[in-house]
């Protein structure tokens, strides 16, 4: 009978061992604000002669794929600012800023990219089929209408792409411009194929 009692105790232990607190389904987690989220992609162009500043952005309020995706700003309704207006035969300095605006104050994610410059590279092209292994410091958009030159490098002397110089030539051309931030943790060598895409945005460039 002692064994029987032991078995009974064992059973109780077993059953108690199956008690698990898996949480209350009636209380789902609130959509949380993620830390390394990118909600806003900003392009700031400074005219090298006049010093005039133009900025364009693409913004997705929660950085998630929900709620209708991203919009171009500042006018969400018309999305007119998806067209970057440039003058012919000019030189611009361009800075890319990535923000997480779900937190206050907004977190500048591009600072972290600069810190880990050897794991990231920003590519510029008029479509992803035309991204070849670039002459490391110059990217040509279309028929030399716009030449984008990398101004920043990582520790291994490979381009990063947060700051660039844009040189325009003849006028009258409209071209799509795709800007892609790649995360190339272990295999950054200046080529586009490696790594995963962190950010991919599409604007239109008009030179006239």
């Amino acid at each position: 009978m002692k064994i029987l009692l032991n078995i009974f105790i064992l059973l109780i232990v077993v059953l108690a061992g199956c008690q698990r607190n898996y949480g209350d389904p009636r209380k789902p987690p609130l959509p949380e604000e993620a830390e390394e989220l990118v909600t806003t992609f900003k392009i700031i162009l400074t005219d090298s002669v006049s010093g005039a500043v133009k900025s364009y952005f693409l913004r997705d309020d929660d950085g998630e794929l929900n709620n209708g995706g991203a919009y171009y700003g500042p006018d969400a309704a018309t999305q007119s600012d998806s067209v970057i207006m440039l003058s012919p035969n000019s030189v611009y300095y361009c800075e890319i800023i990535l923000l997480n605006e779900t937190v206050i104050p907004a977190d500048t994610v591009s600072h972290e990219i600069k810190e880990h410059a050897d794991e990231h590279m920003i590519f510029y092209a008029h479509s992803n089929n035309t991204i070849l292994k670039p002459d490391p410091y110059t990217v040509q958009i279309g028929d030399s209408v716009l030449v984008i030159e990398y101004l920043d490098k990582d520790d291994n002397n490979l381009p990063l792409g947060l700051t660039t110089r844009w040189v325009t030539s003849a006028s009258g051309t409209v071209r799509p411009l795709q800007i892609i931030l790649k995360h190339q943790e272990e295999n950054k060598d200046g080529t586009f194929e490696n790594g995963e895409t962190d950010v991919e945005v599409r604007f239109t460039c008009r030179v006239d």
Partner: protein
Amino acid sequence: MLFIKQVIFVFILFLSSSLFSQSCDLVLKGQVLDEDNSQDLGYAVVRVLDHPTVMQTNEKGEFEIKDLCPGKYRILVQHVGCSDTIFAITINKSKKVVFKLPHNLNALNDIEIVAEHEEIKPVHSSHVLEGKSLDQVKGMNLAEQLRQVNGVSALSTGPTISKPMINGMQGYRILILNNGIRQEGQQWGSEHGPEIDPFVAQRLTVIRGASSVRYGSDALGGVILVEPDHLPDTASVTGEFNAGGFSNGRGGAGSLMLQGSFAKLKYFSWRVQGSLKKSGSVKTPEYFLNNTGLEEQNFSYALSYHRKKGGVSVYYSQVNSRIGIFSGAHVGNLTDLQLAFKRNKPADSLAPFSYSISSPFQQVFHELLKVSSDFHTGNRSRIFVTYALQHNKRQEFDAHGEHAEELTPESEYRLTTHSAEIFWEHDHIRSFRGRVGVQGTYQENVYRENFFIPNYISSTTGVFAMERFVRSKFEAEAGIRFDAKNLQSFYYKEQQLQEPKRDFSNMSYHAGLILKPVNSVRLSFNGGTGWRAPSVNELYSNGLHHGVSAYEKGNADLGIETCWQAAASLLFKHKKITAEINAYNYWFKNYIYYVPSPEPEVTLRGAFPVFNYTQNDARLSGADVMLSYFLLRNLAIKGRAIYVRGINANTNEPLIYMPADRYEAGLTFTFSDKGVFRNMFIEPAVTYVAKQTRVPQDLDFLPPPDAYFLVGVSAGSTIRIKQMPLTISLTVANLTNTVYRDYLDRFRYFNDAAGTNVWLRLKMPFVLYDKK
């Protein structure tokens, strides 16, 4: 703590040399005769329950079972023209017996039907994987093991994850019963394999066709029964040891099982079992697949108190696995995906072999506690009461998400399921066998971290009744069932808590007929209906799938999916020939599937293809053929072919992910015993899988891969070591190291399938203690 003491005690026993004092070399010779006319029943199947032995009688109805330990055995004898019958025998020394098989179970009087519950074999075509054929796949995952069975395919996600597919259906459309309990895991993704210990089953049964009435309205494609042995009922301590090593992945798997019955405590019996598995990067013919390691730790135990008039038993099992996902298949947006498709070799293909598992990976936990009881309500009827509790926790760790460098999963799902069942069953009362019962489940799902499917509470109720009329030349079966399900989900949309509630209910019917016009022929026909409620991901999912960069969006307006099924099968067994043909057809109303939306979803991370759930009428049909022939007494040839077709009835386009046509052929050579070597065999086999040409337009990222041809071989023998039978087998898969990709592998977009793999398996049953 008594338990631990017992385990230690048993291990000490195991190590002591007295272990081998028992002799397990008894031989049981016998003959199977027809009860009515005492004719020899050749080619009858003789199966020792709770033991690996399965054999066929020779043309005179004779059989010989070797390597039996002293004890009580139940022997199931099956012959095409007769009713399946179980004979109970006690064996202390080698002996000879005669088994008389009745045509009609009403006529039986001198045969003891044992106390253990035997499932009424369904009218559907069913296949059992056990004995030698199960030994040859031991340690592989459940879906890979089941591929041995006619009509079963596997839908896989890389080399480490696969799901079984029956009659072209998988996931929610098939059921897995683990030790009699419906497996409740996170079923909503193709990358979610069933959470079952690959060593726990002593018998895997696949019942094909809509088995809605008996097992649940949603068992549309079929049911898989994962069954351990019966517990022993003679005072003894016995066990079984399994070990396997495999070259591809440089892995190992092993299990140890001990079971017994107490001498002092009559009617009590117990079992403990545990298994481990570990492997590293899988190698395709040309490169290693980085991060495809696997770690598994599983255990189970059972305790039972059983008297002739009834009893109680408790069963507990736990599965823990960590599964690496090929890093080269982990991609970001549509641009990355297109780049991945263009590569000849996947990214990371230069990575060396490694056992380490890093992100992305899955961590899965599953436990099952089952308490069941049965008691007699008469000589031939019993009531069964079962309660089961299941916990399932699934964590997915992502490579690049916000939590990549922490030990927090990208998403986590916790599923709790309570299920209860009570049914009454009667055996052979005036040629009738049948069952009536009630089933209910209550389920809660809770997610953490990223949203993919919402929290939910769901409950189901089912009531069913079925009867089978059994005669010598034919059997007829009919069943009816009612099910109701309600599902309430909880999630936030724009900071507002949503609590949508859905109710579903419907009837299911089934009828079947078995004809046995002559001893060598068994013809069966069955028809039935089934239905299933849309699952939570089909209704409310909203997110990206692990691996393939597809964005899945649920459709909250989906209604129930119903189906009508008709199937026919012919089994012909005559002397040296066994042939089987199955054909089936399903008509679906509101079949749930997904379609790509014309515009990709644009985000800051780029564009993602979006898949929306929708429903439409569909038709699914298929056939398979199996043929085996004894060319010589020790040489058999076997072949199989499988065809499945699916059509969307509205668009007339094929359904996606239907298995391609598959052909297999093999030879089995057996050799006569030499010295310590017994049961020697060698089995070369070839497999040809055609290219899947029936695919829907624009639904897939890439066209299906080419046809492929694989060669494999296995060989084995049983060796007597100190009177204990040690079974050794060697299996080589993809012998020629062929480069191929399979249509049903979700990672075929990225990488080739695994190259040559050599498995070496050892198995030894042993006796530690016996009353005598």
